[in-house]
């Protein structure tokens, strides 16, 4: 039985040493964590840029669906919904054929989420899963989408699809998931990686075939190619009357 007044110095030394060793072990981690937080890739997106696309429909032809197939390959849709009916399979982008009934004039154009500045889908989403990033890209947060489909009702462009079955082999860049809603993401994974040099899969596929109908870029940068082309040739919004100020503009309609 040790007297309480006797201090066990070897025990104290052991505890001191352990504490110092533990502190030394953790300290580099703390330092590195602080350094890591300073990395720009973790920074939030800002509204300095607004991503958009200009599509020259004069370069689109009826029956060509290169852009659609490019998007399918990149984002992993179009092949893996085997149980859904033809009206239930998802379509992120589609080709629309127009014919003026009074003149007979025809036109072909690709239609996808228009990434509106005032998106009706964002307004109506009860949980806020449908949201617009500061840089203008409209997305669905797959963690909080409850699958109510109100955004699909509200979208003037019928841009959104609902996933009607379990999916296998989803791509990491595009988590889909049964029971949630999805639409064109403007290849946000590419935008976040390459910034101004990014090109969405639809545009890349179109360029690869030599049609060059798409121009992607920063609408807020007056020197970007898209801003220059818009200034020179103009660009129409589909359903401009709704006042949504969309990010996807078209030439030739």
């Amino acid at each position, binding site marked *: 039985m040790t007297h309480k007044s006797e201090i066990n110095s070897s025990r104290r030394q052991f505890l001191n040493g352990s504490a110092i060793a533990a502190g030394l072990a953790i300290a580099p981690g703390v330092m590195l964590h602080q350094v890591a937080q300073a990395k720009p890739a973790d920074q939030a997106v800002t509204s300095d840029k607004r991503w958009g696309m200009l599509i020259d429909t004069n370069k689109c032809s009826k029956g060509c669906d290169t852009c659609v197939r490019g998007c399918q390959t990149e984002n992993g849709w179009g092949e893996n919904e085997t149980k859904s009916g033809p009206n239930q399979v998802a379509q992120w982008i589609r080709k*629309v054929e127009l014919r003026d009934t009074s003149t007979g004039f025809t036109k072909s154009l690709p239609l996808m989420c228009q990434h509106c500045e005032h998106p009706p889908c964002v307004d109506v989403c009860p949980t806020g899963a449908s949201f617009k990033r500061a840089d203008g890209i409209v997305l669905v947060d797959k963690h909080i989408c*409850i699958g109510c489909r109100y955004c699909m009702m509200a979208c003037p462009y019928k841009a959104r699809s609902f996933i009607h079955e379990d999916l296998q082999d989803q791509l990491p860049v595009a988590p889909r998931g049964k029971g949630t809603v999805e639409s064109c993401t403007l290849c946000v994974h590419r935008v976040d990686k390459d910034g101004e040099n990014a090109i969405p899969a639809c545009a890349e596929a179109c360029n690869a075939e030599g049609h060059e109908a798409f121009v992607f870029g920063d609408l807020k940068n007056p020197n970007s190619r898209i801003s220059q082309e818009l200034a020179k040739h103009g660009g129409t919004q589909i359903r401009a009357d709704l006042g949504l100020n969309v990010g996807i503009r078209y030439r030739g309609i």
Partner: protein
Amino acid sequence: MKANVHFREVLNNGTGYYGLSALLGAIVLIGLGAAYFMEHNGHFVTGMNNEIVWGMPHVFAVFLIVAASGALNVASIGSVFGKSQYKPLAPLSGLLAIALLAGGLAVLVLDLGHPDRLIVAMTYYNFKSIFAWNVMLYTGFMAVVVVYLWMMMERKMNKYTKPAGFFAFIWRLALTTGTGSIFGFIVAREAYDAAIMAPMFVIMSFSFGLAAYILVLMASFEWTERELGDKILYRLKNLLGIFVGAVLYFVLAYHLTNLYAAEHHSVERFILLDGGIYTKLFWIGQILIGGLIPLAMLYHPTLGKSRAVIGWACALVILGGMAQMYVIIIGGQAFPLVLFPGMEVSSSFADGIVASYTPKLPEYLLGIGGVAIALLLVTIAVKVLRFLPESLADAIVDPHTASDAKGTAKKAA
């Protein structure tokens, strides 16, 4: 001399009561099974698709929710508008409101792509969304009506019935306005995007809710052998006639206004003329079966006094109401979005064409399951608590005019 209205629980222990409960319970279980089937496999097992995103379950759910807020009207007439003959009807009215809402919400939630994320819907709110407001209006309504019922049913709280009733009345108007605004706030669709949707839904709730109430009242009194006097029943059926007429008026105003604008001609033509099933449901279901025929039945000088005719008229109002919901919800989605006015449009994603929709069995089962949930809740509640008056004989309801042409005042059962 004021006749006291006594309330009594349902005391029958016969096979009738348990048979009804078992039947309703079975239908509820089947509905839950259908919901599980839909959730487990995914919505490909339904007829809903990327064009018709809301289908048969939503027709049932919205109908039940609209009827729920209307069912509370009967209590409001007593508490808020001071008509004392309606006061004995108030507890059942509150109960039916809660039950119908529970049934409607169950269907709505079980149809979600992710019903497991209900807690997300209750914790993440986008306050610009009318849906988010509705989540609060619907759940709040339950609480408000429970408090209202408490004020009504506990003697020493009776002095608070009037303010509680007033609060409940305002709340249900907000709730139904919110439900109509789900459609009224959608700018993209030709058939929606109209301010009249909200008040039209309020008027529809008056009509459907009262029809449901009268049917439940008649059935519960008949099956528990309680007396339902003519006086109160005729008051209710005349009121129903007014509401049915009011709905027809709102429908008329909505369509006449649309017909005046060239922009809306194509969707009006679709609903009123060449929309196939939607046109049939509009004219035969909504207008004829849901409007004109019940009006004639309810106001006919001799037929309108028959219990069977009144019951059938209520049933027709409900059928017509379902048809109206189908035309609004499904028809509004089936009509194509007009992205390029004046152009013929085609694509691989059903652009430019009327979308097709055939409801499949799980959707019907889920919707009917919701109705069964509502009725089962009423069935259980009237046995457990004193929602039903012992008697609604003429003498009890309106003692001042107890001596009628038949002579003797009827005794309480």
